[in-house]
């Protein structure tokens, strides 16, 4: 968090004071302390497990199961005390200020959930067979109140601490809307723990949580494999680029550009992910083009041109088995088609060209123009944008050209450094770039 502003301190102070107030004001009689101790330990165990195990879309928050079980088994006051335990989390990340805020926040929201539970007609205590199904309504209400209040308070603190960076704050807002769903799932497990309490006591919690911890292990393995997989994909596209140092980083940048376009036109996250991979691998087939063709200066023969035209199909051959979306494969296969139908390998035109391919084509050409090649220097962003606009409608889909230009103006574009040819490797640069829209390949006997 770094240094906190006065407003943040005020906010944290208010939350802590409110939590202290509700805890101090509640009646202390009739709380089964041993049960509270068990639930508090349980909550601490849940809170101590690191949560940030995967970067994307996998939330892990079983703490709600413990606080909501407390709501049913102990009532608002007991739930608040369970929440306070969060201060002692064994996780090493949080600063003291964060710990105090977390404890107060969980206490306050668990207390609120307990109040909602009572207001909707729930009864505090170990549920019996007769309590079902009428306990479900109040419990769902309590869970919703707990989660919503939690997110509200956390969003407040995030807003206060990251007030300057607007684009980041907005991105976070989008994520926040999606995260509560798995939390609600975990909250439901609180009811399972409470329901089994009458039969096996605290072991209920252990039996419910064991499969969840195993699931967490599997998700951690998943995250490891995912990293390995992405590293391998990068190796795959670097393997292509070893042949020509001028194109190093090209695949990564095309991938980034394609993602910018995809986000700008509002593609679904899975498709954005797929186009990211498609961008990284779009030129894999270039390995199938003989080096001497790539390095030939002067006009190409028809055969040599045909070899270049085959590279999208070679690429498809390499990666066909990888379990992508089919769309990514289609994108790689057709990324050299043109809107006017004069592209390759199939000569598709207009809407016949898959959407991914049209996106890749724009990002591909844009990166090529803004990079240095052995036969020319890099163009400026402005020149490249003008060139894209000029070719929109004939070579490129105007919608995606517009989307890329807008995204580049908003987020900027990282142009590559001018490559320095390594000594002792004189002949590793291609004499022409098949991606270059300004300097098209020259084929003998054609104009």
């Amino acid at each position, binding site marked *: 968090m770094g240094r906190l502003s006065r407003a943040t301190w005020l906010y944290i102070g208010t939350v802590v004071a409110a939590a202290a107030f509700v805890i101090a004001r509640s009646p202390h009689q009739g709380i089964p302390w041993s049960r509270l101790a068990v639930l508090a330990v349980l909550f601490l165990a849940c809170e101590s497990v690191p949560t940030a195990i995967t970067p994307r879309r996998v939330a892990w928050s079983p703490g709600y199961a413990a606080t909501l079980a407390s709501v049913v088994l102990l009532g608002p006051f007991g739930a608040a005390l369970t929440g306070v335990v969060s201060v002692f989390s064994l996780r090493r990340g949080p600063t003291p200020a964060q710990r105090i805020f977390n404890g107060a926040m969980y206490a306050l929201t668990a207390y609120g959930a307990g109040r909602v539970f009572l207001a909707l007609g729930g009864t505090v205590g170990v549920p*019996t*067979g007769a309590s*079902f199904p009428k306990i479900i309504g109040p419990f769902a209400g309590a869970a919703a109140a707990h989660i919503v209040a939690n997110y509200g308070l956390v969003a407040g603190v995030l807003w206060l601490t990251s007030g300057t960076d607007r684009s980041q704050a907005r991105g976070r807002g989008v994520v926040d809307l999606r995260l509560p769903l798995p939390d609600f*799932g975990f909250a*439901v*497990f609180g009811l*399972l723990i409470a*329901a*089994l309490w*009458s*039969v*096996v*006591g605290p*072991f*209920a919690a*252990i*039996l*419910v*949580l*064991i*499969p*969840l911890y*195993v*699931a*967490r*292990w*599997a*998700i951690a393995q*998943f995250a*490891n*494999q*995912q*990293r*390995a*997989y992405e*590293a*391998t*994909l*990068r*190796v*795959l596209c*670097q*393997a*292509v680029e*070893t*042949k020509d140092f001028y194109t190093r980083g090209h695949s990564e940048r095309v991938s980034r550009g394609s993602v910018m376009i995809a986000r700008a036109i509002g593609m679904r996250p899975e498709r954005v992910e797929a186009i990211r991979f498609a961008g990284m691998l779009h030129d*894999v*087939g270039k*390995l*199938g083009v*003989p*080096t001497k063709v790539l390095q030939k200066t002067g006009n190409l023969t028809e055969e040599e041109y045909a070899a270049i035209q085959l590279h999208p199909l*070679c690429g498809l*051959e*390499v*990666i066909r*088995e*990888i*379990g992508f979306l089919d769309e990514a494969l289609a994108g790689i296969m057709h990324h050299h088609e043109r809107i006017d139908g004069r592209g390759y390998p199939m000569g598709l035109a207009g809407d016949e060209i898959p959407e991914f391919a049209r996106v890749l084509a724009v990002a591909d050409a844009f990166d090529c123009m803004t990079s240095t090649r052995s036969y020319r220097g890099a163009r400026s962003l402005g020149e490249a944008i003008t060139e894209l606009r000029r070719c929109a409608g004939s070579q490129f889909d105007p919608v995606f050209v517009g989307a890329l230009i807008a995204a580049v103006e908003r987020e900027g574009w990282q142009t590559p450094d001018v490559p320095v040819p390594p000594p002792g490797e004189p*002949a590793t640069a291609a004499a022409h770039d098949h991606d270059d829209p300004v300097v098209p390949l020259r084929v003998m006997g054609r104009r």
Partner: protein
Amino acid sequence: MSVSRDRLATTGLQTRSHRAGGHGQRLLVAASGLLAVGCIAQSVATGVVAARSAIAFAALIALGELLRLNLPGDREAAPIGTACALAYALLIRVGSSPARHSAFQVVAVTAVGMALGVLPHLAVGRPARTAGMASRLLAVACTAFVFRPLAGTGNIVRHWWAALAVMTVLVTVAWLVDVVIAACTRADTLRGRLWVTFTDELRVQGLLGVAVGASALLIAFAAEAMGLVAVAVFLAPLLVTQVAFRRYAGIRATYLQTVRALARVTEIGGYVETGHADRVSRLAVAVGRELGMAEPELLELQYAALVHDIGQLSLQDPIPGGATVLVSPEDQRRIAELGAEVIQQATMLDSVAEIVRRQSDPCGGTSRCPSGPLPGTAPGEDTDAGERPARPPLSSRIIRAVNAFDDLVGSSADPARAAAVLDRLRLDTSAEYDPAVVAALGRIITRLSVVSG
């Protein structure tokens, strides 16, 4: 009659032998089939007790069999089905009425549920995997035949902690039965060593087994607390586990496909003959298993074998035919170093990079090629050939021998040629190739030619 490509294809990790099955597997399936038929007959003769719960559990077991899960190493598990079947065996009460069904009925319900659940798999052309089903049924039967008499006496139900302890022990035993049977069938079909396959099974099935056992107890107690409806609800935690494992299985498969794609890059580029990487990886894994390597090592060996020629990508001109065995030791060394450099960029493949780097070292250890600065050695690592550890890792020695074999035999199906190549490798052993690896390779080649002959 010959070492054909198809025969080689069945020796890899993705073996298809579970469909055919060895004698042991057939015996297992027959035994549990007889048990199932006997129990169903017994249950029908004596009449089904508490038909409602029997039908509910059969339905859930069928669902579990339908939602099978892929585990590493081409295994399949049915966590939900197993948990429900074990829970049915461990049921003490449903609501307030005692559960009086017999062990025979437990086995019968489980068998019927499994049979129903496997039908959709068969309908879409997936294998039935009867061996796995048989071992699951036997595990459930063990639990049922011990616990049902206890549940009938009523002694155990007086204290929940006593019931919990007995149930925990029984679930653990059931899990061990499943693991031991799986290890035996695997050792039988893949010709692995029993202890190795047993530890492999423990590693793969361990945590999932714990989750299944906990869920079985959970469901058994939940049925007591809240009646039959609760059973479906209390499957939720296990369902989360299942979803997590499914994602894991998905990314694992994709990862292997990506490594294969990396291997294919050398083929598309014309550096290596088509199919070379695939053949080397299958044969290398077979040799590794023959030499008693455990599954994680076999997986690394498979990856390393698939990408062992990736270093050739950095060459200006392809070697004729891509056969690295024919080039000078210095060039072999350089290709291996370049390959390791490429692989090292994939951060998770450090061990694989080391295997690929050392594949060019002769088995005798110190390489005879002139020492000097080599490209792509990791920082802090010695670049001097003389200072290398004496022996390359087993995986490197395997890849070295298998690569030489495949370079010289190629996709040829002539057994005489394979035999001649093996003889040549044998002559080179001790200095170039590991005698144990070459011997294992010889055994596998002989076995394949016998099988296909």
